[in-house]
């Protein structure tokens, strides 16, 4: 096979401008940032035997006496997720209405709400958890506060976007009946955006469960604390049960929300 014989399917035979640029820029960025990330292949390779060792150590008898406590903490994680998402849902609904261009009472309100929501979701939950633990002490409360806060940022934005794409004609129908401001939003906008809302809530629940699982790292409740401690102390009797139960719960929720989504459609 003769190499000079090969070419790309473009008028010039050379690869297109955009893919080439993207490739070059990506390689440049990666090369520049490699030292910052301390990229070192030999380090990774030499760690492989340690990883294999580790996986071997994981397969040890679980610490049976720990299981009830594990169950309690997992339950706490689930409860935190549910509560935080519920609180955020209640707050996001009105905020979503205010943050949607077609349902907001005034452009100023629209812009302020939109930007506020943007700020609320800018920092990851863990950062807020740190801050709230600092404020109200340890336990699930700061975790719930942090989760709710960030979730309002996401849900508010998603809700607003769902409201913005409703069919205007259906809205006009209700306007023509002489509906009030609130009635219009309740009977024309909300029912149309509802299926999207449900999808958003499912997605957020999934995301929050994973987030809740790690908040314990900073003392904000849930299984996170046990997880980090077990890791730090190489407490293999607990690691596998903890990891497995997180995996199970997350997967269950995933399947449940898939099922639920199928039924909704």
């Amino acid at each position: 096979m003769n190499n000079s014989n090969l070419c790309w399917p473009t008028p010039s035979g050379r690869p297109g401008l955009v893919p080439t640029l993207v490739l070059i820029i990506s390689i440049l960025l990666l090369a520049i940032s490699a030292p910052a990330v301390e990229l070192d292949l030999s380090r990774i390779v030499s760690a492989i035997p340690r990883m294999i060792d580790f996986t071997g150590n994981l397969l040890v008898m679980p610490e049976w006496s720990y299981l009830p406590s594990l169950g309690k903490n997992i339950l706490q994680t689930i409860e935190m997720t549910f509560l935080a998402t519920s609180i955020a849902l209640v707050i996001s609904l009105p905020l979503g209405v205010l943050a949607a261009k077609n349902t907001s009472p005034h452009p100023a309100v629209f812009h302020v709400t939109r930007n506020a929501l943007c700020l609320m979701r800018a920092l990851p939950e863990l950062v807020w958890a740190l801050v709230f633990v600092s404020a109200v002490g340890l336990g699930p409360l700061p975790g719930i506060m942090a989760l709710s806060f960030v979730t309002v940022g996401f849900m508010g934005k998603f809700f607003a976007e769902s409201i913005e794409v409703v069919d205007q004609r259906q809205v006009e129908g209700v306007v023509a009946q002489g509906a009030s401001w609130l009635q219009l939003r309740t009977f024309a906008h909300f029912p149309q955006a509802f299926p999207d809302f449900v999808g958003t809530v499912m997605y957020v629940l999934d995301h929050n469960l994973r987030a809740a699982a790690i908040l314990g790292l900073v003392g904000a409740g849930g299984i996170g604390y046990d997880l980090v401690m077990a890791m730090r102390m190489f407490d293999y009797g607990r690691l596998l049960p903890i990891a497995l139960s997180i995996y199970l719960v997350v997967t269950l929720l995933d399947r449940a929300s898939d099922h639920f989504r199928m039924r909704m459609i």
Partner: protein
Amino acid sequence: MAEHTIQRPALPKKPFNPTSVWLSGWLALIWFIIVDLELSFETLLYGVQDIFEYFSRYSRPNFEDISRYIELLVQTLATALWGSTLAIVLAVLLAPFAARNLSPNAATYRIARELLNFMRAMPDLLLALIFVAALGLGPLPGALALGLHTAGFLGKFFAESLERVDNGIYEAVTATGASRIQLVMYAGWPSIQREALGYMLYIFDRNVRMAAVLGLVGAGGIGLALHDTLRMFNYDQSAALIVVILATILTIDYLSTWIRGKLN
């Protein structure tokens, strides 16, 4: 009441509306959780009162260590970049196997799907902890952890998009005698270009946030600095750090929205 009542044909029986059941169930669940977690409104109220005072402590950000913060920030971004790249590579390799209409057989499909689910389910923090234990401290284990974890998400998104492509297009390329790899390259990826790019931007965004936080477990980045300053109740420096983190995340958000706008 009027003596003359009009006889109307009866309406069909109203179908049972489960909404009230769901609603009361939901409220009951919430109440139960509040009790079970021993959440007291007192603590919350005091906390909220305190919060205003508390937040005021952050009102004087101290930027004197800014050069160190920037350095950490660069490290965080680098971690996110490399993590996302690893995720993209893994996802591109796995996704075709996890798409029902592209996978060679049912067994491969199941395995690929489960593998992606597993990668998604493991919290990135746990992976980071494991990699720190194996490789030592620093941003590299963080990048690896992020890469593995987000590969699960990206792989699933890619696979679902690939599954949604019009089957006729797959048939047409198959009918020319193309192999499976060629099918994926010429009918699969080109058809989902735009969505794929959207997903990649999304996980880069997510990885920047996570990278900022992974420092808390020694995986490098600006999170560790924040943890330290907060532990020492050094609110001025914490405020500065939060501002830096916030500014970065907002910029990345803005950039990715801009790029997404350009795509359309």
